[in-house]
């Protein structure tokens, strides 16, 4: 009974098209807005039009009397519901109470004031217009630096200095670094407010069943289990009687790594009315009330030797927090401090983070969350230093990189980088783009009066969030592998992918480990009644952490399958191998994985000390973050007449560790780069001094469109991470982090002949033109 076992082709590492796509390309996927239930009611929310205002009175009588309106609730009705939760903590952190509907005062434009529940969304919207509020507007403050100034209006009257926290971190000996310095370069660098704008806005359906004391909530979230725990707490329900479903989620980028007032509010309404209720956020609400990203003002000082050796970096970071803390708001700028040193080996840092309340929607995690700001800071400062001492930007980077033999590398900020060969990645990028040739071309271009720039960023990031002590609400991940009697495999991941493609990449891993066809594996996620407790999707963690949990669960399945196989083949446990879907003994006799699965459930042949069934669950806690890195190079040209920037070439060489599916990796990178270029060139969430969000629709908030994006050339070096068994690092945020400094460095390089040394984002054509005007005036004067 010797069988020939055909070697199966490994799926990991292959460009495999996604298993999730058929439903998405045929219009048959179910997003929250597509959820329909009998007797479903619809909610619409009245929001503050003022940046800061007292509510003198609210009259809901006209709204309540409108035919079709079922109920209207205001702040007075919801006091039994818990306030919005912030999971982050810092010593001395001031935490304002954030009720799910405003009480006697509103703190930002869009602040929820009342909810109208009606038979359809049209009537609900009409009802909102009929609520009369007697507002008493007060002076708002939206600029974080102005908010810190003496005499500024207090966002929260109890804290007149508008300061939520001050966080200090020191590494090494900064005084010595500055004493030893031959050059010090200083710059104020702004990372502007950004609006995440996933194409699907937020939405919630809540369905309370009184008889069961059970609540089902569909919500567009990246963290179904955490959201369930928090919502159960807010609503006073048993956690096991709350089922939270993140159905198809139309993008998040961090903005859905949160639990918002509307989620508990819909739960409250459903419980009050004993009917299911739906709320779908409008785009305008999304702009005004879903978290924003960035909002940094950084004062940076870099100390160095004339030969380019960096000695230290000093940072004063003013973080615009907005009016409240959402789930992670105060933690985000602390990540910037951790990534301050970038890829460089200097030993001294000092940082002070000042968290500032403003009359604006809270900032929180947006793709990269803290790390793009840090990378932008160090990569800009390195370029400015290079310019100051007349050194090539590539050379100064080589001079300061942590060496490939330095790993694990303990940084000045206290992190231990896992693995890397930074010089090799930059080598590859410089070679691919013909850096030497480009510099020669630039000399020629400048001679012809053209403004050509070459910008390099060698970024690093921490991702694969993360060790639990360093990740609010936990940083582990879970996976269950359930092999059915037929041998078909169901994977349940605690991650909550929403576009990243883990239904495919996790199936690839499972198929390889178990030797089953890809089509035999399905991956479930996002439903707390189906999936074991998990953390969710953020911080480029799905593969590095969720994939690792899956890997270990698969090993448990393999071990058990081998024991069943050995028993079926009549040999000892250790005498079989499981490969290519077969369990084979030393004589070449084998049983298939499917036969083993059948036997495991039939229960007649049970290995000693084992038990029927073939299911394994693992919770995996990473010992460290993972640290991807890369080199992005942008060649640009500035139109002298208009200031418009043209990207001539975009090259990304990234080292994200081992790659499960290159097709998905390309997609993540391209998307990340688009968001980075969006920040560098166009996007800006602008509040005026009175708290109005003036870039409040797609008319004024410039999202990258197809015609604005360059072609992205991409390559990789591969340095596996030793932190997880897959050797994966993470790619979700790499493009966003690497791109902004490359873009700004490129344009600053283009304008260097005019004496330009720094430009804040977004580098709009008008801003560049103005800069050229001012520079040329200076030139003429000089």
């Amino acid at each position, binding site marked *: 009974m010797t069988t020939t076992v055909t070697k199966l082709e490994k799926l990991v590492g292959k460009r495999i*098209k*996604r298993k*999730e*796509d*058929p*439903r*998405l*390309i*045929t*219009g*048959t*996927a*179910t*997003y929250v*807005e*597509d959820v329909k239930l009998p007797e479903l009611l619809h909610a619409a929310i009245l929001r503050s039009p003022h940046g800061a205002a007292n509510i003198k009175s609210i009259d809901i009588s006209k709204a309540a009397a409108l035919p079709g309106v079922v109920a209207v609730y205001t702040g007075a009705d919801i006091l039994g519901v818990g306030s919005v939760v912030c999971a982050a903590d810092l010593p001395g952190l001031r935490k304002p109470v954030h009720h799910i509907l405003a009480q006697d005062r509103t703190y930002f434009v869009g602040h929820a004031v009342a909810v109208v529940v009606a038979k359809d*969304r*049209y009537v609900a919207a009409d009802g909102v217009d009929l609520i009369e509020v007697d507002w008493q507007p007060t002076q708002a403050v939206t600029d974080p630096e102005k908010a810190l100034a003496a005499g500024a209006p207090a966002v929260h009257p109890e804290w007149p200095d508008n300061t939520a926290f001050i966080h200090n971190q020191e590494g090494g000996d900064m005084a010595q670094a500055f004493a030893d310095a031959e050059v010090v370069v200083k710059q104020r660098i702004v990372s502007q407010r950004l609006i995440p*704008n*996933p*194409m*699907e*806005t937020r939405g919630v359906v809540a369905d309370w069943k009184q008889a069961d004391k059970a609540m089902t909530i569909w919500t567009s979230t990246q963290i179904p289990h955490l959201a369930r725990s928090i919502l159960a707490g807010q609503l006073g329900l048993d956690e096991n009687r709350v089922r939270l479903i993140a159905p*198809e*989620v*139309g*993008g998040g*980028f961090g903005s859905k790594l949160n639990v918002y007032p509307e989620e508990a509010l819909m739960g409250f309404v459903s419980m009050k009315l004993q009917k299911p209720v739906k709320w779908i956020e*409008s*785009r*305008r609400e999304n702009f005004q009330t879903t978290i924003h990203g960035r909002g940094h003002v950084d004062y940076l000082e870099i100390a160095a030797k004339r030969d380019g050796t960096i000695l230290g970096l000093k940072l004063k970071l003013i973080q615009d927090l907005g009016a409240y803390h959402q789930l992670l708001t105060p933690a985000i700028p602390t990540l910037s401090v951790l990534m301050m040193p970038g890829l460089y080996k200097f030993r001294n840092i000092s940082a002070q983070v000042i968290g500032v309340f403003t009359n604006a929607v809270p900032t929180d995690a947006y793709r990269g969350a803290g790390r793009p700001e840090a990378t932008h800071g160090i990569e800009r400062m390195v370029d400015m230093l290079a310019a100051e001492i007349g050194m090539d930007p590539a050379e100064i980077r080589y001079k300061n990189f942590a060496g490939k033999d330095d790993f694990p590398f303990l940084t000045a900020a206290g992190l231990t980088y896992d693995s890397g060969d930074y010089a090799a990645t930059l080598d590859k990028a410089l070679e691919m783009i013909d850096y030497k040739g480009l510099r020669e071309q630039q000399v020629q271009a400048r001679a012809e009066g053209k403004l050509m720039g070459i910008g390099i960023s060698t970024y690093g990031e921490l991702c694969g969030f993360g060790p639990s002590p360093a990740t609010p609400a936990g940083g582990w991940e879970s996976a269950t592998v359930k092999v059915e009697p037929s041998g078909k495999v169901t994977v349940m991941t605690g991650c909550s992918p*929403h*576009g*990243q*493609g883990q239904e495919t990449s996790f199936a690839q891993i499972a198929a390889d480990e178990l030797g089953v066809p890809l089509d035999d594996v399905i991956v479930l996620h996002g439903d707390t009644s189906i999936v074991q407790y998990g953390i969710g999707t953020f911080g480029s963690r799905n593969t590095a952490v969720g994939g690792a949990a899956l890997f270990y669960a698969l090993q448990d399945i393999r071990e058990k399958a081998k024991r069943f196989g050995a028993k079926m083949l009549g040999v000892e446990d250790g005498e079989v191998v499981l490969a290519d879907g077969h369990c084979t003994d030393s004589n070449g006799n084998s049983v298939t994985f499917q036969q083993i699965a059948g036997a495991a459930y039939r229960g007649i042949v049970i290995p000693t000390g084992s038990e029927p069934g073939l299911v394994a669950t693992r919770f995996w806690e990473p010992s460290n973050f993972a640290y991807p890195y890369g080199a992005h190079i942008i060649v640009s040209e500035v139109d002298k007449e208009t200031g418009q920037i043209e990207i001539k070439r975009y090259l990304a060489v990234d080292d994200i560790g081992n790659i499960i599916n290159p*097709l*998905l990796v*390309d*997609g993540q*990178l*391209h*998307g*990340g*780069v*688009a*968001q980075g270029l969006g920040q560098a060139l166009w996007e800006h969430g602008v509040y005026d001094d009175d708290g109005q969000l003036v870039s409040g*629709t*797609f*008319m004024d908030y410039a*999202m*990258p*469109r*197809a*015609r604005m*994006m360059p*072609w*992205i050339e991409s390559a990789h070096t591969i340095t596996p991470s030793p932190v997880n068994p897959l050797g994966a690092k993470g790619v979700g945020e790499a*493009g966003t982090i690497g791109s902004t400094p490359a873009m700004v460095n490129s344009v600053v390089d283009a304008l260097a002949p005019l004496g330009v040394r720094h430009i804040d984002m977004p580098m709009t054509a008008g801003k560049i033109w103005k800069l050229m005007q001012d520079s040329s005036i200076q030139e003429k004067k000089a």
Partner: protein
Amino acid sequence: MRTINVSVNGKQYSHEVEPRMLLIHYLREVIGLTGTHMGCETSLCGACTIEVDGKAVKSCTMFAVQADGAKILTVEGLAAPDGTLHPIQEAYWTEHALQCGFCTPGMIMITKQILERNPNPTEHEIREGLDGNLCRCTGYQHIVNAVRTAAKAGA
């Protein structure tokens, strides 16, 4: 209320609607075709793109009453009745031209119009053609590839 008669994906429908009902809400909530998505309210994201009488339009910027008598095609009507995907759907799948999938129905519908008017577009023409459709996930590069692949397939 007004009565409208429309053909959607080859099926005839007649309903009484409020004049203010948007065509997208009619398709999603009255007929029950939820493949078409609403991504903004300023007619700038294109997620709601469908075909009305052979022309790509944004169904969030049309009242259902304006479509009275029209022939409408939505993403659900692209695949053959036996489930065989339209070449554009195949191309989006093959090229990994979607991630979260929310903008995808609109992208696919505008791709159809781009290729009907220009069967062999350049990269520049593709990008210009996609100007009314926002995608926040892909950076558009794979979408450009998908349009090219669909063009090669003669979509």
